[in-house]
Protein backbone atom coordinates (compact mmCIF):
# COMPACT_ATOMS: atom_id res chain seq x y z
CA UNK A 1 0.00 0.00 0.00
CA UNK A 2 1.26 3.48 -0.80
CA UNK A 3 2.46 5.41 2.25
CA UNK A 4 -0.02 8.29 1.72
CA UNK A 5 -2.90 5.83 1.83
CA UNK A 6 -1.45 4.14 4.88
CA UNK A 7 -1.12 7.57 6.50
CA UNK A 8 -4.73 8.47 5.79
CA UNK A 9 -6.03 5.08 6.93
CA UNK A 10 -4.07 5.23 10.16
CA UNK A 11 -5.24 8.78 10.87
CA UNK A 12 -8.82 7.73 10.10
CA UNK A 13 -8.50 4.73 12.45
CA UNK A 14 -7.25 7.01 15.20
CA UNK A 15 -9.93 9.61 14.47
CA UNK A 16 -12.65 6.97 14.81
CA UNK A 17 -11.60 6.51 18.47
CA UNK A 18 -12.81 10.04 19.18
CA UNK A 19 -15.79 9.81 21.54
CA UNK A 20 -18.89 11.33 20.01
CA UNK A 21 -19.75 14.64 21.57
CA UNK A 22 -23.33 14.61 22.88
CA UNK A 23 -25.96 15.43 20.32
CA UNK A 24 -28.81 17.55 21.53
CA UNK A 25 -31.05 19.75 19.45
CA UNK A 26 -29.94 23.33 20.19
CA UNK A 27 -32.55 25.38 22.06
CA UNK A 28 -34.90 27.14 19.69
CA UNK A 29 -33.63 25.20 16.66
CA UNK A 30 -36.97 23.56 15.81
CA UNK A 31 -38.75 26.90 16.31
CA UNK A 32 -36.35 28.59 13.87
CA UNK A 33 -36.99 25.87 11.29
CA UNK A 34 -40.76 26.09 11.68
CA UNK A 35 -40.83 29.90 11.50
CA UNK A 36 -38.61 29.70 8.41
CA UNK A 37 -41.15 27.33 6.86
CA UNK A 38 -43.97 29.70 7.76
CA UNK A 39 -42.14 32.61 6.08
CA UNK A 40 -41.48 30.40 3.07
CA UNK A 41 -45.19 29.58 2.85
CA UNK A 42 -46.11 33.27 3.01
CA UNK A 43 -43.54 34.00 0.29
CA UNK A 44 -44.87 31.17 -1.87
CA UNK A 45 -48.41 32.47 -1.43
CA UNK A 46 -47.32 36.00 -2.43
CA UNK A 47 -45.48 34.63 -5.45
CA UNK A 48 -48.62 32.70 -6.39
CA UNK A 49 -50.86 35.71 -5.90
CA UNK A 50 -48.82 38.48 -7.58
CA UNK A 51 -48.94 37.34 -11.24
CA UNK A 52 -52.61 36.44 -10.92
CA UNK A 53 -53.41 39.83 -9.42
CA UNK A 54 -51.53 41.51 -12.28
CA UNK A 55 -53.54 39.57 -14.87
CA UNK A 56 -56.85 40.40 -13.16
CA UNK A 57 -55.86 44.09 -12.92
CA UNK A 58 -55.00 44.10 -16.63
CA UNK A 59 -58.34 42.53 -17.48
CA UNK A 60 -60.19 45.10 -15.39
CA UNK A 61 -58.34 47.92 -17.21
CA UNK A 62 -59.24 46.47 -20.60
CA UNK A 63 -62.89 46.03 -19.61
CA UNK A 64 -63.03 49.58 -18.27
CA UNK A 65 -61.56 50.95 -21.51
CA UNK A 66 -64.04 48.93 -23.55
CA UNK A 67 -66.95 50.12 -21.46
CA UNK A 68 -65.84 53.74 -21.81
CA UNK A 69 -65.57 53.34 -25.54
CA UNK A 70 -69.01 51.73 -25.72
CA UNK A 71 -70.69 54.37 -23.55
CA UNK A 72 -69.35 57.36 -25.51
CA UNK A 73 -72.42 58.89 -27.32
CA UNK A 74 -72.46 58.22 -31.07
CA UNK A 75 -72.10 61.45 -33.08
CA UNK A 76 -75.54 62.87 -33.79
CA UNK A 77 -75.96 63.41 -37.54
CA UNK A 78 -78.44 66.26 -37.15
CA UNK A 79 -76.18 68.21 -34.78
CA UNK A 80 -73.24 67.63 -37.11
CA UNK A 81 -75.24 68.82 -40.14
CA UNK A 82 -76.54 71.88 -38.28
CA UNK A 83 -73.02 72.87 -37.18
CA UNK A 84 -71.70 72.33 -40.71
CA UNK A 85 -74.45 74.47 -42.25
CA UNK A 86 -73.94 77.17 -39.64
CA UNK A 87 -70.19 77.21 -40.31
CA UNK A 88 -70.72 77.43 -44.05
CA UNK A 89 -73.21 80.25 -43.62
CA UNK A 90 -70.83 82.17 -41.38
CA UNK A 91 -68.05 81.73 -43.91
CA UNK A 92 -70.35 82.88 -46.74
CA UNK A 93 -71.32 85.99 -44.84
Amino acid sequence: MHSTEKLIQKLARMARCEPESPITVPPGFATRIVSGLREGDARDWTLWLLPRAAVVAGLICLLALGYRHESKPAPNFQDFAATYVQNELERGL
Partner: protein
Amino acid sequence: MNEDLGPLITAWREHRAEAAARELVHVLYPQVIRIVRNHLSRGMDEEDLAQEVFRRLFDQLHRYDAKLPLENWLSRLTLNVCRNALRGRSRRPELRWTDLSETEQTTLEAAMLSPDTATAGQAREARELLDRALSTLGPDDRLVLTLLHLEEKAVSEIAALTGWSVTGVRVRAFRARRRLRKALADLAARFPE
Protein backbone atom coordinates in the same frame (compact mmCIF):
# COMPACT_ATOMS: atom_id res chain seq x y z
CA MET B 1 -37.67 4.51 11.52
CA ASN B 2 -39.88 4.94 8.48
CA GLU B 3 -42.92 3.34 10.08
CA ASP B 4 -42.69 5.59 13.13
CA LEU B 5 -42.22 8.69 11.04
CA GLY B 6 -44.91 7.86 8.48
CA PRO B 7 -47.74 9.67 10.30
CA LEU B 8 -45.52 12.71 10.92
CA ILE B 9 -44.52 12.88 7.26
CA THR B 10 -48.14 12.55 6.19
CA ALA B 11 -49.25 15.21 8.68
CA TRP B 12 -46.70 17.64 7.25
CA ARG B 13 -47.35 16.78 3.63
CA GLU B 14 -51.12 16.95 3.82
CA HIS B 15 -51.85 19.48 6.56
CA ARG B 16 -48.58 21.38 6.95
CA ALA B 17 -48.81 20.47 10.65
CA GLU B 18 -46.13 22.44 12.50
CA ALA B 19 -46.16 20.06 15.47
CA ALA B 20 -45.25 17.23 13.09
CA ALA B 21 -42.43 19.34 11.61
CA ARG B 22 -41.03 20.00 15.11
CA GLU B 23 -41.17 16.32 15.96
CA LEU B 24 -39.42 15.41 12.70
CA VAL B 25 -36.64 17.92 13.46
CA HIS B 26 -36.10 16.38 16.90
CA VAL B 27 -36.02 12.80 15.60
CA LEU B 28 -33.83 13.44 12.55
CA TYR B 29 -31.39 15.96 14.05
CA PRO B 30 -28.84 13.38 15.36
CA GLN B 31 -28.52 11.70 11.95
CA VAL B 32 -28.10 15.04 10.19
CA ILE B 33 -25.54 16.40 12.63
CA ARG B 34 -23.43 13.20 12.54
CA ILE B 35 -23.09 13.48 8.77
CA VAL B 36 -22.43 17.22 8.93
CA ARG B 37 -19.69 16.71 11.54
CA ASN B 38 -18.01 13.97 9.53
CA HIS B 39 -17.94 15.87 6.28
CA LEU B 40 -17.30 19.44 7.27
CA SER B 41 -14.13 21.09 8.38
CA ARG B 42 -13.92 21.99 12.03
CA GLY B 43 -14.87 25.56 12.50
CA MET B 44 -17.67 25.52 9.95
CA ASP B 45 -20.98 26.26 11.58
CA GLU B 46 -22.72 22.90 11.85
CA GLU B 47 -25.94 24.44 13.11
CA ASP B 48 -26.29 26.65 10.03
CA LEU B 49 -25.70 23.65 7.81
CA ALA B 50 -28.23 21.56 9.75
CA GLN B 51 -30.74 24.37 9.36
CA GLU B 52 -30.20 24.38 5.61
CA VAL B 53 -30.66 20.59 5.53
CA PHE B 54 -34.02 20.85 7.30
CA ARG B 55 -35.14 23.74 5.11
CA ARG B 56 -34.52 21.56 2.06
CA LEU B 57 -36.01 18.51 3.71
CA PHE B 58 -39.37 20.17 4.27
CA ASP B 59 -39.19 21.82 0.89
CA GLN B 60 -38.72 18.50 -0.89
CA LEU B 61 -40.61 16.14 1.38
CA HIS B 62 -43.47 15.91 -1.12
CA ARG B 63 -41.03 14.21 -3.53
CA TYR B 64 -39.96 11.57 -1.02
CA ASP B 65 -41.15 8.05 -1.85
CA ALA B 66 -42.42 6.61 1.44
CA LYS B 67 -41.58 3.06 0.30
CA LEU B 68 -37.85 3.83 0.49
CA PRO B 69 -35.92 4.29 3.74
CA LEU B 70 -36.00 7.88 4.91
CA GLU B 71 -32.46 7.51 6.31
CA ASN B 72 -30.97 7.07 2.84
CA TRP B 73 -32.93 9.94 1.39
CA LEU B 74 -31.97 12.21 4.27
CA SER B 75 -28.30 11.17 4.12
CA ARG B 76 -28.20 11.95 0.42
CA LEU B 77 -29.79 15.35 0.99
CA THR B 78 -27.39 16.14 3.85
CA LEU B 79 -24.35 15.10 1.82
CA ASN B 80 -25.48 17.41 -0.99
CA VAL B 81 -25.76 20.35 1.39
CA CYS B 82 -22.27 19.59 2.78
CA ARG B 83 -20.85 19.31 -0.73
CA ASN B 84 -22.31 22.68 -1.69
CA ALA B 85 -20.92 24.26 1.49
CA LEU B 86 -17.47 22.85 0.75
CA ARG B 87 -17.58 24.15 -2.82
CA GLY B 88 -17.32 27.70 -1.59
CA ARG B 89 -14.21 27.00 0.50
CA SER B 90 -10.72 27.73 -0.71
CA ARG B 91 -8.27 24.83 -0.48
CA ARG B 92 -4.53 24.58 -0.05
CA PRO B 93 -2.71 22.93 -2.91
CA GLU B 94 -0.58 20.79 -0.57
CA LEU B 95 0.21 20.08 3.06
CA ARG B 96 3.87 19.99 4.02
CA TRP B 97 5.58 18.72 7.14
CA THR B 98 6.60 22.28 8.01
CA ASP B 99 2.95 23.41 7.82
CA LEU B 100 2.13 21.19 10.79
CA SER B 101 2.31 22.36 14.37
CA GLU B 102 4.49 20.44 16.80
CA THR B 103 1.42 18.69 18.23
CA GLU B 104 0.27 17.70 14.77
CA GLN B 105 3.69 16.30 13.94
CA THR B 106 3.64 14.25 17.16
CA THR B 107 0.11 13.02 16.39
CA LEU B 108 1.13 11.96 12.92
CA GLU B 109 4.15 10.09 14.22
CA ALA B 110 1.99 8.40 16.86
CA ALA B 111 -0.55 7.43 14.21
CA MET B 112 2.15 5.82 12.09
CA LEU B 113 3.64 3.96 15.04
CA SER B 114 0.63 2.67 16.98
CA PRO B 115 -2.59 3.61 15.30
CA ASP B 116 -4.92 0.97 16.74
CA THR B 117 -5.70 2.73 19.98
CA ALA B 118 -5.80 6.41 20.77
CA THR B 119 -6.76 8.58 23.67
CA ALA B 120 -9.61 11.01 23.20
CA GLY B 121 -7.09 13.82 22.80
CA GLN B 122 -5.03 11.94 20.21
CA ALA B 123 -8.18 10.98 18.34
CA ARG B 124 -9.28 14.61 18.22
CA GLU B 125 -5.85 15.67 16.96
CA ALA B 126 -5.94 12.91 14.35
CA ARG B 127 -9.39 14.03 13.21
CA GLU B 128 -8.15 17.60 12.83
CA LEU B 129 -5.09 16.48 10.95
CA LEU B 130 -7.19 14.31 8.67
CA ASP B 131 -9.42 17.28 8.10
CA ARG B 132 -6.41 19.40 7.08
CA ALA B 133 -5.19 16.68 4.76
CA LEU B 134 -8.60 16.29 3.13
CA SER B 135 -8.98 20.05 2.77
CA THR B 136 -6.40 19.88 -0.03
CA LEU B 137 -9.07 18.11 -2.11
CA GLY B 138 -12.17 19.27 -3.95
CA PRO B 139 -15.61 18.53 -2.41
CA ASP B 140 -16.31 15.33 -4.36
CA ASP B 141 -12.86 13.86 -3.71
CA ARG B 142 -13.14 14.73 -0.06
CA LEU B 143 -16.63 13.24 0.13
CA VAL B 144 -15.64 9.91 -1.38
CA LEU B 145 -12.55 9.51 0.81
CA THR B 146 -14.41 10.48 3.98
CA LEU B 147 -17.12 7.94 3.23
CA LEU B 148 -14.56 5.25 2.44
CA HIS B 149 -11.99 5.80 5.17
CA LEU B 150 -13.69 7.61 8.02
CA GLU B 151 -17.19 6.16 7.78
CA GLU B 152 -15.97 2.84 6.34
CA LYS B 153 -18.82 2.61 3.85
CA ALA B 154 -18.83 0.03 1.07
CA VAL B 155 -18.58 1.21 -2.52
CA SER B 156 -22.17 0.11 -3.19
CA GLU B 157 -23.39 2.13 -0.18
CA ILE B 158 -21.52 5.20 -1.41
CA ALA B 159 -23.09 4.73 -4.83
CA ALA B 160 -26.55 4.66 -3.24
CA LEU B 161 -25.82 7.73 -1.13
CA THR B 162 -24.32 9.88 -3.83
CA GLY B 163 -26.28 8.74 -6.85
CA TRP B 164 -23.03 7.85 -8.66
CA SER B 165 -22.54 4.43 -10.27
CA VAL B 166 -20.36 1.83 -8.52
CA THR B 167 -17.74 2.28 -11.24
CA GLY B 168 -18.05 6.03 -10.85
CA VAL B 169 -17.33 5.75 -7.13
CA ARG B 170 -14.26 3.56 -7.80
CA VAL B 171 -12.93 5.97 -10.41
CA ARG B 172 -13.49 8.99 -8.17
CA ALA B 173 -11.82 7.26 -5.23
CA PHE B 174 -8.86 6.32 -7.39
CA ARG B 175 -8.45 9.88 -8.66
CA ALA B 176 -8.98 11.36 -5.20
CA ARG B 177 -6.24 9.12 -3.78
CA ARG B 178 -3.91 10.15 -6.58
CA ARG B 179 -4.54 13.84 -5.88
CA LEU B 180 -4.10 13.31 -2.17
CA ARG B 181 -0.83 11.46 -2.78
CA LYS B 182 0.39 14.51 -4.67
CA ALA B 183 -0.79 16.95 -2.01
CA LEU B 184 0.73 14.96 0.84
CA ALA B 185 3.92 13.86 -0.90
CA ASP B 186 6.04 15.77 1.58
CA LEU B 187 4.35 14.18 4.61
CA ALA B 188 4.48 10.68 3.12
CA ALA B 189 8.20 11.06 2.44
CA ARG B 190 8.70 11.25 6.23
CA PHE B 191 7.29 7.77 6.63
CA PRO B 192 8.77 5.55 3.95
CA GLU B 193 7.19 2.12 3.50
